């Protein structure tokens, strides 16, 4: 896959990096990332991945943009309040980088559709806000041998790791075998 001259300029500052180079850029362009959630975690991740030139980005988020989301979910603009996050995310990602192919997955990500969705991607980014979805992402990633980027934020703290048992290391269930019993849990 060759880059246009526009793309060469667009990505020139990162292709300059010796470790990254044109090869790294080609790899990104040939990659597909599934982003579960376009909220506090999904927003910045998505914007950076799109800007950096990931070839295909899948979006899942059944929610509507709320005014109280805007201070941290920076993907969504003020004029999007009350509209589906999926549409808002699509238009913003397209504006950041028109070279990105955007796939919208409507509805929820659940045990019934997760394998069918995840199989078309190289990597999963979990920016979800609930345990059923988080466990689903982990299970699907494990069965299909896709790396899962796990992030979580709570008040002033945050954490990140990569779950990829096929490359070594644990899965999310090694940390938490089952979702905590029902009740309010910070997510």
């Amino acid at each position, binding site marked *: 896959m060759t880059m246009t001259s526009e793309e060469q300029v667009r990505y020139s500052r990162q292709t300059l990096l010796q470790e990254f180079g044109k090869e790294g850029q080609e790899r990104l362009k040939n990659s597909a990332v599934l982003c579960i959630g376009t909220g506090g975690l999904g927003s910045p991740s998505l914007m950076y*991945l799109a800007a950096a030139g990931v070839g295909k980005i899948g979006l899942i988020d059944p929610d509507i943009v709320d005014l109280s989301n805007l201070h941290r979910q920076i993907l969504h603009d003020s004029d999007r309040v009350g509209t589906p996050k999926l549409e808002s995310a699509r238009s913003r990602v397209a504006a950041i980088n028109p070279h990105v192919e955007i796939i919208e997955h409507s509805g929820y990500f659940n*045990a019934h559709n997760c394998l069918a969705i995840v199989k078309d991607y190289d990597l999963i980014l979990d920016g979800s806000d609930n345990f059923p979805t988080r466990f689903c992402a982990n299970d699907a990633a494990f069965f299909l041998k896709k790396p899962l980027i796990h992030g979580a934020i709570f008040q002033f703290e945050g954490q990140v*790791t990569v779950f990829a048992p096929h490359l070594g290391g644990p899965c999310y269930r090694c940390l938490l075998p089952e979702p905590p019993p029902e009740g*309010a*849990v910070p997510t």
Partner: protein
Amino acid sequence: MEAIKLLAGLGSPPLGRLVHYRALDTSFREIKIKPDPSCPLCGTQPTITAPVAYPEKSCDMNNDGLPEISTQDLKNILDSGFDGILLDVREQDEFFMAHIDGCQLLPLSGWPEAASNLPKEETYYVLCAAGMRSARAGMWMLDNGFEKVTNVAGGMKSWQQERALD
């Protein structure tokens, strides 16, 4: 960044390393997570063979008979020299994020087995993130021979909000 590294083939991913950032004191800590051989999914004898469907959370709670106190009252009790047990029933990763000094961690995911060795005559204050799980734990305790059990309403969320105002 972790996604870009993996996709472009740069550096190494933090497999088995959970990096934890605390903005208020600008500190990073790293928690090692080993693969668990008894993991129901990736362990040596997995019990999960397909993605598991979990029900959406329900809100029907019945806390009848379980006394509650506010986190402010809890603070007063702890400050005045409490000699009972403050039981934190959150999970380990939540506990790591923040906890009250002197509390005993007993994640609800391990109940009821985990709670079976608790002395029944002690005085307990039960705490979780927001007061829901601790209410479940507290109800179980009342149903199983514990008499002096009180739920901490609002949990760590309320506790931390108050401490932020101190």
